[in-house]
């Protein structure tokens, strides 16, 4: 009964989505306020129906209703409650329903807002409803989560054990919030293209939505990478797998969009490009969904593959993205820029940022799709490995970070490079010193390590110098704190995010360069030296969990005769379905992670084990966390500004220096 209610709610949502599409555009064409106002109601109704439908599915999971095919195929009565709940979105059908729920949630949030002009809002909601309509059709026609199983199964098949993990329970929702959040920027762009006008106000409306999506996407990617680090047991955290790239590309495009929208807002320039970026960012989200679910590529994310679904998503993809770009090709000539700015200015720095970030996006896209292209044209297989992506990253991120240190110091409209150089000299000296010292002292002597550390130090010092400049720390130190307090939150947001990038760079460089690793074949009682640590293999014990059995090894880590940690890596065998998973034993120290994995057993009671010391690897997740805080700070700034008078100059002090009036 509950499942039928869920199914019915989904059909009602489809009806409301249809109505939303038609009514909004009819109302806008007729310019009839009463009709346009209806769209708001339809958006709320879509959300309520999607919520009811999702709740029905979740309920079926919680009570383990195995007469629902989806529950029987993906759940098990003995599973812990958390994983029964997360099982709702841990499969293809449920995750698509979750996707629709978030689409409608963002639609309802836009509908709820009061700042948009009614006509524009109706257009936005019309486009959003069209996206919702497409996904609802996809679910109802090819992936119905409420399909019944008669007779009901006695027991479910269980959730893929790799997914039975707290990190992964929350990785998909966060990622989907990010992917789907970009739909708002998309809808705003299409609405603006239909209306044929983009104003600085447009950028102000679209930026917070992009920030929300970007913040969630950052969190989702970080969680996914953390999960890979401790669950896959290879000690790695990023593999340039198609699924990872699928989440990284929208993130890069969204990051570029965040920056280019500032130029639209401040200078009424770069409009056509920003619209394009907004379309591209969401298109890349859709592309990622397609790549992973259609079965066209292999990746660590194996959804049940169904060619029919692949064809449907491809058709929808072609319609949405192709339609958007056709509209763009038709309307772009109307988006002439009005604002001018000098070659050396904050605007130009943001353009440089966009060129580098979008080139990087293209590099990742080409690397991801090239194997497919190669196979289609030659019939044989090829894989594009990390060296390609890493080369692209170094080539493009080096100038990005150099520019990043100086850009916040440049003035809007017309800056002076000489002044920016002058202020950042100490940062350059520190960076150079770090570079030289690294090359000098490190026996590995890798130039890349020096470069990474130098760039990260450059960024950190440059951020400090910019803050010192803005608070006049060196001129009137006594009032600097008060000035710091009065800086706009968006400035803090920006610096937090940039500082996060520096920390990530530190984390990557240090952990790559100084990881000690040992692959050993050892018996309990033996010990191995890993860097400065002695890993003593104490024992291997069998144990049983709620729905798995396994072995747990115990390692004692000793440094200078002092026991500092006990690591308990596990090798689990889940019963339903029978799957092997490894759980790395990790102990984070301030200086780095102690990491142990237990592998296969061999002759003589010995086990193959992998032991690592990974210095400062937590910088990766710490940095991602700082980036998210940056996003949230920047968002909170916007909320404060909503109450401010709506004049253009006062309302857009985003990253501008507060001490100076705009020239």
């Amino acid at each position, binding site marked *: 009964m509950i499942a039928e209610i869920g199914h019915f709610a989904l059909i009602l949502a489809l009806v409301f989505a249809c109505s939303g599409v038609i009514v909004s555009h009819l109302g806008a064409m007729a310019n009839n306020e009463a009709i346009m106002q209806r769209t708001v109601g339809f958006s709320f109704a879509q959300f309520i129906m999607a919520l009811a439908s999702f709740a029905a599915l979740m309920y079926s999971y919680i009570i383990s209703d195995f007469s629902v095919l989806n529950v029987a195929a993906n759940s098990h009565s003995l599973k812990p409650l958390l994983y029964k709940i997360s099982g709702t979105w841990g499969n293809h059908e449920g995750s698509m329903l979750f996707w629709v729920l978030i689409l409608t949630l963002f639609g309802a949030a836009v509908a709820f807002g009061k700042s948009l002009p009614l006509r524009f809002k109706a257009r936005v909601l019309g486009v959003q409803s069209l996206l919702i309509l497409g996904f609802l059709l996809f679910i109802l026609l090819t992936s119905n989560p409420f399909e019944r199983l008669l007779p009901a199964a006695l027991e479910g098949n269980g959730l893929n054990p790799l997914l039975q993990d707290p990190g992964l329970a929350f990785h998909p929702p966060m990622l989907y919030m990010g992917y789907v959040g970009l739909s708002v920027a998309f809808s705003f762009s299409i609405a603006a293209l239909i209306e044929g006008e983009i104003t600085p106000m447009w950028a102000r409306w679209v930026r917070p939505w992009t920030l929300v999506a970007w913040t969630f996407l950052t969190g989702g990617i970080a969680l996914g990478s953390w999960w890979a680090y401790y669950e896959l047991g290879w000690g790695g955290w990023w593999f340039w797998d198609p699924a990872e790239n699928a989440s990284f590309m929208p993130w890069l495009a969204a990051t570029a969009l965040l920056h280019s929208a500032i130029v639209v807002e401040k200078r009424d320039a770069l409009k*056509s490009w920003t619209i*394009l970026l907004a*379309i*591209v960012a969401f*298109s890349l989200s859709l*592309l990622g969904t*397609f790549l992973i679910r*259609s*079965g*066209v*590529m*292999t990746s660590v994310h*194996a959804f049940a593959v169904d*060619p029919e679904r*692949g*064809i449907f998503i*491809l058709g929808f*993809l*072609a319609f949405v*993205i*192709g339609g958007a*770009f*056709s509209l*763009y*090709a038709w309307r*772009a*000539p109307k988006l002439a820029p009005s604002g001018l700015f000098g070659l050396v200015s904050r605007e130009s720095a943001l353009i440089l940022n966009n060129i580098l970030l979008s080139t990087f996006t293209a590099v990742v896209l080409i690397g991801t*799709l090239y194997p*497919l*292209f190669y*196979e*289609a044209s030659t019939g*044989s*297989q090829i894989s594009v490995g990390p060296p390609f992506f890493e080369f692209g990253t170094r080539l493009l991120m080096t100038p990005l970070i150099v520019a990043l240190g100086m850009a916040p110091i440049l003035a809007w409209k017309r800056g002076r490079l000489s002044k920016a150089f002058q202020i950042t000299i100490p940062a350059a000296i520190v960076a150079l010193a770090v570079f030289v010292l690294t090359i000098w002292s490190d026996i590995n002597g890798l130039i890349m390590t020096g470069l990474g550390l130098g760039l990260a130090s450059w960024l950190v010092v440059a951020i400090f110098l910019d803050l010192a400049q803005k608070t006049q720390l060196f001129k009137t130190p006594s009032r600097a704190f008060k000035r710091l307090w009065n800086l706009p939150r968006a400035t803090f947001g920006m610096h937090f995010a940039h500082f996060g990038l520096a920390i990530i760079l530190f984390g990557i460089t240090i952990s790559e360069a100084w990881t000690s690793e040992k*692959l*050993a*074949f050892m018996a309990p009682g033996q010990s191995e030296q890993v860097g400065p640590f002695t890993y003593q293999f104490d024992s291997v014990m069998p144990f049983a969990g709620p729905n798995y059995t396994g072995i747990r090894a115990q390692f004692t880590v000793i440094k200078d005769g002092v026991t500092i940690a006990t690591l308990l890596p596990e090798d689990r065998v889940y019963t339903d379905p029978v799957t092997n998973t490894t759980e790395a034993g990790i102990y984070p120290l301030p200086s780095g992670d102690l990491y142990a994995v237990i*592998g*296969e*057993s*061999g*002759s003589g009671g010995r086990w*193959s084990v*992998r032991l690592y010391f990974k210095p400062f690897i937590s910088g990766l997740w710490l940095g991602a966390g700082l980036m998210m805080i940056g996003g949230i700070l920047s968002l909170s700034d916007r909320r404060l500004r909503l109450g401010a008078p709506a004049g253009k100059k006062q309302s857009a002090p985003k990253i501008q220096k507060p001490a100076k009036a705009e020239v």
Partner: protein
Amino acid sequence: MQRFFPLLIVIFLVILFAYMLRDGRNPSEIKNVHVGEAIPQFSLTDISNTGEISDQSIRNEKTPILVNFFASWCVPCRAEHDNLMALANTHNVRILGIAYKDQPEDSRAFLEELGNPFYKYGGDIDGSVGFEWGVTGVPETFLIDSNGRVRYHHYGPIVGDALHTKILPQLEDLSQ
């Protein structure tokens, strides 16, 4: 004209995807180009004083053999070593060892420590032979029939029930 570029890219990608979604394509299958084919041309560095080893010397065997890529630095190779010893001693299978990207003295020490299951072994010090064979890592094992054709390719270590469910049945098929 530029404004049409994004659209053109999308059209190109849609055609590519549509083509790749056609029936009967399994993207997770790794095709080894050699299964069903004659073994590739190669010759190994003599590190064991067992004479020259090349594709020609395998063809001269006139009996089915296993070709095992191993390395002293490879931990899973240790895990499968007992099974290789059993194959050689209990099942009387001739196994040719190829030490992949390994120093000759390390390979010799490895076999001295764990026992030598190979009737012959040679060194692929720079990994070029592995490249010819299309190995993706070590250990990997190939089954070669008496005509010098690759009949089966095993990825990863022969551990667990792989010996009894994969390797031995394939060998039996060949000897019939």
